[in-house]
């Protein structure tokens, strides 16, 4: 959980953690998000069966599409009798931010091709958000977090599709509030510089504005682009500026 201490200290850790260790750390770090993922998975399973999807189709969608926003929208559209092309277009439009996250992740880790192909399958916002803890993203860590979400999402789907309304909805107790708290716990230690603070400010405002107009991943993508552009602009300004600001080196990491 406390990846930051490992990432920063150089004297305490004589050797790099193994891939398996990083994978396990990523898997565990995402587990708080299970509190939200399993109930939403159950809700998806119930809704999918409710609009007439078969058991196999319901489970297959969670195994292959693996996106809460996309699958819940698709089920709603199916219920409204939308054509297949609209379903596919909506699902993909809700996940355009995956392009940016994949680029940022691979740019930082430069993994082998086989590892890229495998890690990409499990790439989600939540996994990326948890895996950047401590500012040091690793591919095994990202994959571990992704697989962790995959397990929770598909467990929820199976429960919802099989047991349906027999289950109580834990969201009444506000378990979905764990998600923002988890992301916050990763975010706060990363905001160490003025450039990072400006990034967060611009991204937060952008996310609020875009989310009013368009759902899901579009807000994450818009905020990601606007925020990182603002942060890069500020870092550049500090580098070329009059006074040398001591925090600048940290921005370049």
């Amino acid at each position, binding site marked *: 959980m406390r990846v930051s201490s490992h990432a920063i200290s150089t004297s305490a850790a004589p050797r790099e953690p193994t891939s398996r260790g990083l994978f396990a750390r990523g898997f565990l770090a995402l587990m708080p998000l299970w509190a939200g993922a399993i109930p939403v998975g159950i809700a998806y399973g119930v809704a999918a069966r409710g609009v007439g999807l078969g058991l196999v189709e319901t489970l297959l969608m969670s195994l*292959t599409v693996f996106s809460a926003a996309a699958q819940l929208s698709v089920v709603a559209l199916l219920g409204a009798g939308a054509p297949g092309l609209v379903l596919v277009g909506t699902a993909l439009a809700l996940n355009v931010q995956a*392009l940016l996250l994949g680029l940022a992740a691979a740019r930082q880790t430069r993994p082998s091709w086989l590892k890229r192909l495998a890690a990409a399958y499990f790439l989600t916002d939540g996994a990326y958000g948890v895996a950047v803890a401590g*500012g040091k993203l690793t591919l095994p860590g990202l994959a571990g977090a992704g697989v962790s979400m995959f397990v929770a999402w598909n467990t929820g789907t199976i429960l919802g599709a099989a047991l349906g309304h027999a289950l109580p909805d834990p969201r009444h107790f*506000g378990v979905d509030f764990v998600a923002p708290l988890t992301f916050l*716990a990763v975010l706060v230690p990363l905001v160490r510089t003025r450039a990072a603070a400006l990034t967060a400010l611009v*991204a937060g405002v952008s996310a609020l504005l875009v989310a009013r107009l368009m759902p899901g991943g579009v807000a994450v993508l818009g905020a990601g682009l606007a*925020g990182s552009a603002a942060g890069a602009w500020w870092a550049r300004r500090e580098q070329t500026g009059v006074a040398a600001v001591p925090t600048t080196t940290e921005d370049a990491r």
Partner: protein
Amino acid sequence: MNALGPILAMAVGMYALRITGFLLADTAIPPAWERALTFVPVATLTALVVTSLAGGADEAPIRLIAAAGAGVIAQRTRRMWACILSGLALYWLLRLAAARIG
């Protein structure tokens, strides 16, 4: 209902979205973009906090206050569990208080 076709098309499309960024990572990009990519984690996390907070519209003030408190704890302790548990505790306390008053 036979939705197998659209499901498989979505699966292929989703994987294409997920893999494209990974495949483009070796191409040369301008230094300005390179610099911008280092800020993607902070920007994305902020967006995730904001969009997942907005979930409970009817209890938005409670969630905002609890998240702010948890943010302070995260800043002080730098521990994920401390942030999550303190935020949840504050949230449930505020919910109880709001139920008493309301």
